[in-house]
């Protein structure tokens, strides 16, 4: 009988453990993008990616549609090449779309802002592996100050 009580208590113990794991998994962690669901890849070349990191979000109007999956240097000119993994739910971007490196808030993380382009008969949709041509690089504070001083000097 004592053995049965012990088994009952251990059973409840394991159940509490599983419930706690479910709480952590569903309430505390994000389960939406990256871990599950169909995705496709887009590429973009920048002059400067600033503080962009792998796993930074890709947003359209503030809504996360994917994540940066890889950052490498590409080509003869050593341009930063960013690989984005986009959820297949959002696969209707035209090749006139543009991406820019943006910062959330004053001190926040950097992310990629994707602006969907116009659609008419002459433009094609972006498919898996395509490059986004229209890119805007990160703002670097020192460059801004340099440009400011230079333009002051011309006056």
């Amino acid at each position, binding site marked *: 009988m004592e053995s049965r009580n012990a088994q009952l208590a251990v059973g409840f113990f394991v159940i509490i453990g599983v419930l706690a794991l479910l709480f952590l998994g569903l309430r505390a*962690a994000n389960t939406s993008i990256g871990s599950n669901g169909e995705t496709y890849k887009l590429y973009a070349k920048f002059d400067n990616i600033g503080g962009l990191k792998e796993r930074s979000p890709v947003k359209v109007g503030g809504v996360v549609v994917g994540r940066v999956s890889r950052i490498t240097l590409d080509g003869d000119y050593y341009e930063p090449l960013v690989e984005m993994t986009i959820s297949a739910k959002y696969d209707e971007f035209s090749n006139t779309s543009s991406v820019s490196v943006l910062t959330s808030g004053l001190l926040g993380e950097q992310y990629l802002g994707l602006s969907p382009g116009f659609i008419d008969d002459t433009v094609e949709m972006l498919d898996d592996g395509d490059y986004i041509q229209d890119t805007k690089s990160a703002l670097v504070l020192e460059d801004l100050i340099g440009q400011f001083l230079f333009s002051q000097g011309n006056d």
Partner: protein
Amino acid sequence: MLDKVAALGKSVLDTIAGAGQAMVMLLRALIGKPQLRKSWPLLMQQMYSVGVLSLVIIVVSGLFIGMVLGLQGYTILVDFGAEQSLGPMVALSLLRELGPVVTALLFAGRAGSSLTAEIGLMKATEQLSSLEMMAVDPLRRVISPRFWAGFYSMPILAIIFSAVGIYGGYLVGVRWLGVDEGAFWSVMQSNVEWGQDILNGIIKSLVFAFVVTWIALHKGFHCTPTSVGISRATTSTVVTASLAVLGLDFVLTALMFG
């Protein structure tokens, strides 16, 4: 002079011999034909005394550590107007570090010391020898179920600790200090990763469970079978296991998040 060198040599040799003894004990206890019908009730009994009875101290300390994290984090973050980041701060520090580490330290003090004392007393009162006289292998009968019970219980305890701690942080941050509830959970969700944070925390606690239980059983099984010897072995279990946990934690953190 030479005596001192000899003493140094002796302590090194003793340490190596102890590590070897511990290894042999573990291998002999774990390798062999599994006898599920016999070992299942023993495992349940041990999981009850090692795991279930540790639940109260784990839940209470988890709640208070979560509440302290919420309070301390809030007073710092509110200066920067970043009190929405309280959620990920509490969740990440619990899941990555405090959950596995504090659970392992509490486990070493609560369950590890009792394992050492129990086995040490069995040795001192020659119960282990009697088992061998009856052709029952004490390693299989006494050590093996206790090892598996500790190995399975501690990750579960660490998960419960983290969950209760996050709830404690929520109580203080949202209910008391007035952080926005939606921001608390959503910013937490956008920063905590299933594989990177939760899974790595569980891997950490599995490693700690292995080390703490192993040390506790080894110290008990190879103690000097006197009352002084048992008391020394119990102390040494808590000290060695705590140091091993803290040292391993640095190595694991460097490997996982470095």
